[in-house]
């Protein structure tokens, strides 16, 4: 099967720090790929380089088999790749609706939109409200509320809702449930299944092993700036995965060839 998104030999340094050391990446059509790894393993840097938020030193990326190079996150978005960054990328002083539509605002039709460039706020607010309700974020009372007045989990919910609403090919989520409550975390997992059912591929970076093992079709284990291996969650236990991730054990295919 041809991967939707594929990367080979990604290299990135920050001064003396090696963030990506020849990392590979494969995302298959319609799958949920979990990416796990220690803090600082280079997971966030990898997905940022895939979406054009960081420029690589070397490496090849292809989207649906075609070589591609994104100069900015906007370029990736135009190709149907939506991302929830670990930092969420929300503008604190702006409203929920403003944030959801940042960079792809809806304008009124006719002169109001064409000449006066007026934004269709009612439509944007209605859409935002629907998406938040789908996610079960019912504790948000006012859709015009500034994002800075929301709780950390509510903010995370908004970033997830935004990505899920607009992604058409690939959705990447960097620790989307870290700050969420039990109910909201569950909703995000359900939402991922819905999104997957629409045929969209998903990358889920998470430290929550039960969540990862519940939803992932395959698990990409990242260690020291590169992909260590990809496992099937049905073949391994969480303890195995954690052992690979931390370096306590080596996956079988590497064990045979290694000297250690």
């Amino acid at each position, binding site marked *: 099967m041809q991967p939707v998104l594929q990367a080979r030999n990604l290299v990135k340094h920050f001064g003396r720090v090696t963030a990506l050391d020849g990392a590979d990446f494969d995302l298959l059509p319609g799958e949920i790929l979990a990416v796990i790894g220690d803090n600082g393993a280079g997971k966030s840097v990898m997905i940022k380089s895939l979406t054009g938020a960081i420029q690589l030193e070397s490496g090849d990326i292809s989207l649906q088999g075609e070589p591609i190079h994104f100069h900015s996150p906007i370029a990736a978005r135009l190709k149907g790749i939506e991302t929830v960054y670990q930092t969420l990328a*929300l503008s604190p002083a702006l409203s929920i609706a403003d944030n959801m539509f940042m960079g792809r605002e809806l304008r009124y039709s006719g002169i109001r939109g064409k000449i006066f460039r007026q934004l269709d706020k009612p439509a944007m607010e209605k859409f935002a409200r629907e998406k938040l309700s789908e996610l079960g974020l019912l504790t948000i009372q006012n859709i015009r509320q500034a994002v800075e007045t929301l709780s950390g989990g509510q903010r995370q919910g908004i970033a997830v809702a935004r990505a899920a609403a607009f992604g058409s090919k690939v959705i990447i989520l960097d620790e989307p449930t870290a700050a969420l409550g039990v109910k909201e975390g569950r909703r995000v997992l359900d939402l991922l299944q819905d999104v997957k059912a629409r045929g969209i591929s998903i990358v889920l970076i998470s430290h929550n092993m039960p969540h990862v093992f*519940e939803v992932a079709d395959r698990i990409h284990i990242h260690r020291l700036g590169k992909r260590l291996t990809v496992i099937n969650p049905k073949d391994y236990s969480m303890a195995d995965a954690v052992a690979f991730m931390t370096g306590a054990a080596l996956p079988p295919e590497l064990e045979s060839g290694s000297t250690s």
Partner: protein
Amino acid sequence: MSKLTQEEADLEASLSSAPTEVAEFAEQDGGLIRKAQHVLHQNPALVPLIVLIVSIIIFGAILGSKFFSPFALTLILQQVQIVAILGAAQSLVILTAGIDLSVGAIMVLSSVVMGQFTFRYGIPVELGIVCGLICGTGCGFINGWLVAVMRLPPFIVTLGMWQILLATTFIYSANESIRAQDIEEQAVLLHYFGTKIPFAGVNFTYGALFAVILAFGLAYTLRTTAWGRHVFAVGDDPEAAELSGVNVKKTLISVYMLAGLICAFAGWAVIGRIGAVSPNVGQLGNIESITAVVIGGISLFGGRGSIAGMLFGALIVGVFSLALRLLGADAQWTYLLIGLLIIFAVAIDQWIRKVSV
């Protein structure tokens, strides 16, 4: 392991029976002060508006008809118009968490270009004015490019530009003015913004009218267009804006260019105000515009505030300086009080921000 652990299943068992409507709460009664804090957080222009009204009432009570005379109001408007136009440019830049120390210098250079192109090279005055406007926009582009692409701090860039443009103005104009009389005879369009509209004894000018229309236009643009939202997003957190799909460089450059264009209009207006084209005007333009912006409640940290607030800020400064002059006070008292107002405004800004944390 693909199933939920038992514990987790129990934990989530009750979720299906959780309510599904948007939560609602009775409006809580948080006391008058908290409520005020909240209202001010929503409408940052209210503080300067209240200060403006209170100061008008106080000065009006002390000075009586002297203060409300057509003469006094004309003077305030004349004085405020230039500061308000420059303040509009300054507001845009400060909303992006920048600062523009070159607004005054761009204004003067543009007005000198308008005058000299028309008189020295004999081109039609309309074309001369267009050249001045292009000159202002170009200066803004250089500022914006250095800030957005070269990533230099706005303070340093515009400090440098201020000196460069000022020197250019003096060198180019050879420190010579164009007399009002010559303009009146040969290029009266340069005086356009000085055109008077008498109303109830007060002399409004096109310049003052322009300042108000400009402020409303910008306020509308910032609130209801995508570009306006992007300006706020860039000022708030440029990295988040970039990641969420805003072209930060383009937005920044467009802001500085628009600011430059507005400064060039101020340059045109200043010819109408003083009559002549002089390289010696507007030396305090940057400080006065920053003062109006800060008193107007626009946060120097970017992303917060409104153009209406800036307009009130400019009027407050105008009212104070005129009232104190009418009271026969030493001009230093004006500066002293305005200094206090600036610190007061920033303190209020910090207090309002606390509502969100």
